């Protein structure tokens, strides 16, 4: 008779809570978790955690070597902000198991080659930096690293390749030097000098026409917006002048020096940069965004200078943290604030600067704009006593420098500031900005305030905005977003079409059909009588005027009411707006009715494009028409234009995809 265990009977159909054997995937998860978590806040020191983890992994090597290799390669590629923690770990493993160290280096080189093949250049930089820090951990021999860098720098000698290709290899070399410059220079100073002089001559001859396009401010004061390689070169030159003494980077491997220096090192295999191909897409060049310096926080720790290598490392790491945790705002904020060195650097200033650097990045931020707003709010929640003040200081500085700020960046600043204020009861010291009241309203500062107030109103309501600003600011306050109905007043009864408008109003209120509407509109005379081309419905601006004015007025209550109206009378719209002039005139009338409510104009234009009442070309013609010239520099115009272009792009992509799919189907048909 079989002896059945109690648990088999009682747990029938239920998942076992007690595992009899661990699944391989669970082990991998546990290993991954152990490795990823090392370096996080802990009761033990980082050194003892690393020591412990090295012991655990060493014991697991016989059974789980390939998994451990994979995980370590992945953290090297994806967690660059913890670079030195993991190079130390690899160093300890290499000291205990030389073969493993060799296999890891080989795996890293394979991974590097693959990254370069599939255009993953950011990840590739992290791998190169990891390899270079492995020199500090006695895993890789310095001369072989120098040899790799020699191959990198020689890419600048290639002919007929995009400059951005040479730029990347140069960046990969230079940006590793904060970590390994000292060691490489000590072992191979002649070779390094040669590399540095080749670097200098490359940087002198490369083109920098992209710089004005990417600068957030056109002014060089107070902080020049430097080209990223130029800035990095200044930082490396200063590092060299300081005899490669770098004091910011946390180097856990220093504590293990006695163990690590006993380890045998590996030589990097000769690395030939893969050739340039048609499919190669290199990263775009950048301009370094700076808004703070040591004078901005006189009471706190000194902010590293713009040409210090510390500044470079801090910024790189903070950007990496955002890249790792952008989906998890609380984690992201916590990780940013727990960046090591908090008492030696004005961390809040660095964080705010790095966030604005991303928000204002041209052409586009790395992540969706609203992420930065919410991230800053999370940071304010975690540091309520200090971060809001830094943010206020930053806002003030950005305001002061509006005159030279790129317009796209001003737009982002407006969107961020208004959304931010809406989370803090719109509290702001507006009086501090009364200087803008004496300026011409089209100047950047008053314009900025006007646009901010308009956006604040969109997130609340008109009276709220009137209440939050001082009375002197009324000249900058947004208009009350009410609809303007030209046939509404008895005094306008002499206007052509007035009686038809009245008729139409009654008919629509009585749920008239499209046909009834058409018949009412038949009575509207056509001021363009002479242009009748005899092909049926001709362009009749008065008909459009009467119909659109009346309908929009009746549906003015909310967006939904207006959208319903557009849907219900879609046929009438399509007929009246059949010609290009018709489409243009519809847009003009929409503007006349809703010029106090730019948000309504934007959503109506969007809906009319999507329901094909107007097309993108008509919107473009309308925006660039002389009637709208006076609003040309208002941001709502550009909001509409950009939205229209985006819709057009999406449409083109969609059709292109459908075309490709149809071609593929046809090809498959022919094969049969």
């Amino acid at each position, binding site marked *: 008779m079989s002896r059945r265990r109690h648990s088999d009977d009682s747990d029938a159909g239920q998942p076992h809570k007690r595992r009899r054997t661990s699944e391989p995937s669970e082990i991998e998860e546990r290993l991954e978790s152990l490795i990823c978590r090392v370096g996080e806040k802990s009761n033990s020191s980082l050194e003892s955690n690393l020591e412990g983890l090295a012991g655990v992994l060493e014991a697991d090597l016989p059974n789980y070597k390939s998994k451990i290799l994979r995980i370590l390669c992945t953290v090297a590629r994806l967690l660059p902000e913890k670079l030195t923690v993991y190079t130390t770990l690899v160093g300890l493993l290499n000291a205990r198991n030389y073969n493993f160290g060799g296999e890891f280096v080989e795996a890293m080189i394979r991974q590097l080659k693959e990254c370069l093949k599939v255009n993953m250049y950011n990840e590739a930089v992290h791998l190169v930096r990891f390899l270079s820090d492995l020199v500090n951990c006695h895993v890789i021999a310095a001369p072989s690293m120098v040899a790799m860098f020699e191959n990198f720098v020689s890419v600048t000698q290639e002919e007929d390749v995009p400059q951005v290709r040479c730029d990347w290899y140069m960046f990969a070399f230079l940006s590793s030097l904060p970590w390994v410059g000292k060691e490489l220079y000590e072992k191979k100073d002649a070779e390094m000098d040669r590399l540095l002089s080749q670097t200098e001559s490359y940087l002198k001859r490369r083109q920098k026409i992209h710089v004005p396009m990417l600068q957030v401010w056109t002014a060089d004061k107070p902080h020049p917006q430097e080209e990223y390689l130029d800035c990095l070169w200044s930082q490396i030159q200063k590092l060299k002048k300081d005899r490669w003494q770098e004091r910011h980077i946390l180097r856990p491997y220093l504590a293990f020096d006695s163990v690590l220096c006993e380890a045998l090192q590996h030589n990097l295999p000769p690395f030939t940069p893969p050739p340039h191909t048609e499919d190669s897409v290199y990263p775009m060049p950048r301009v370094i965004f700076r808004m703070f310096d040591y004078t901005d926080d006189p009471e706190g720790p000194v902010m590293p200078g713009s040409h210090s290598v510390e500044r470079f490392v801090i910024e790189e790491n903070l950007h990496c943290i955002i890249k790792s945790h952008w989906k998890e705002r609380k984690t992201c904020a916590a990780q940013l604030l727990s960046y090591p060195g908090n008492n030696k650097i004005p961390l809040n200033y660095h964080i705010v600067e790095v966030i604005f650097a991303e928000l204002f990045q041209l052409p586009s931020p790395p992540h969706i704009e609203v992420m930065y707003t919410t991230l800053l709010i999370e940071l304010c929640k975690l540091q309520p006593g200090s971060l809001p003040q830094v943010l206020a200081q930053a806002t003030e500085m950005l305001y002061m420098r509006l005159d030279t700020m790129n317009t796209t960046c001003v737009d982002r600043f407006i969107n961020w500031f208004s959304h931010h204020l809406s989370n803090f009861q719109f509290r702001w010291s507006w009086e501090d900005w009364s200087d803008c009241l004496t300026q011409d309203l089209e100047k950047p500062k008053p314009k900025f305030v006007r646009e901010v107030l308009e956006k604040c109103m969109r997130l609340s309501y008109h009276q709220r905005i009137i209440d939050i600003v001082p009375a002197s600011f009324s000249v900058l306050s947004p208009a009350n977003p009410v609809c303007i109905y030209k046939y509404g007043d008895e005094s306008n009864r002499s206007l052509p079409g007035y009686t038809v408008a009245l008729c139409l109003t009654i008919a629509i209120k009585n749920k008239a059909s499209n046909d009834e509407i058409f018949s009412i509109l038949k009575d509207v005379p056509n001021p363009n009588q002479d242009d009748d081309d005899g092909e049926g419905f001709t362009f009749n601006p008065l008909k459009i005027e009467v119909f659109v004015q009346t309908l929009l007025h009746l549906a003015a209550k909310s967006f*939904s009411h207006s959208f319903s109206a557009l849907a219900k009378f879609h046929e009438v719209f399509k007929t009246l707006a059949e010609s290009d002039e018709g489409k243009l005139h519809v847009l003009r009338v929409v503007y006349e009715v809703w010029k106090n409510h730019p948000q*309504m104009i934007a959503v109506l234009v969007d809906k009319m494009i999507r329901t094909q009442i107007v097309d993108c070309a008509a919107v473009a013609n309308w925006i660039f028409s002389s009637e709208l010239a006076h609003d040309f520099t208002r941001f709502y115009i550009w909001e509409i234009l950009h939205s229209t272009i985006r819709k057009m792009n999406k449409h083109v992509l969609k059709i292109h995809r459908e075309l490709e799919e149809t071609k593929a189907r046809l090809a498959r048909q022919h094969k049969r």
Partner: protein
Amino acid sequence: RLASTGPGSVAMSSGGTLSILRSDSYAELSQYRDQHFRGTRYDQERLLRKSCTLYVGNLSFYTTEEQIHELFGKSGDIKKVIMGLDKVKKTACGFCFVEYYARGDAENAMRYINGTRLDDRIIRTDWDAGFKEGRQYGRGRSGGQVRDEYRQDYDAGRGGYGKTVQCQ
């Protein structure tokens, strides 16, 4: 940051991705399931996982469609906003549905707009299986939302005291 054409978490043959980097807790399904949903739990979850529609709660009764459009428009193009109404009064009763054209835009709303303020109130968003006629009405006995039937606190933006308190 240098622009990369490949996201950092693309799985590679020699590498992969890390579960800590995959974490996307704000965009996950919550524990809430609409009890009035017609269909199996499985169907409901399937719809929730591909939905482009969000339920938005804790709105003020005075919050307008325009404000909602402005705020939620920050994560992408909005297809439709449907205001939640008191079943009896047919006035706003503090919730709405926001439908996007693309799921990714709804996910970003869950990540960055959920838990922030609208009309000075912390609003809450959650995945919705999709609007159906009738779902725009409150399910409380008095016509508003259930939560406003029984709550004890005074909330000026939501009609003052809860309905049962008001009736005392």
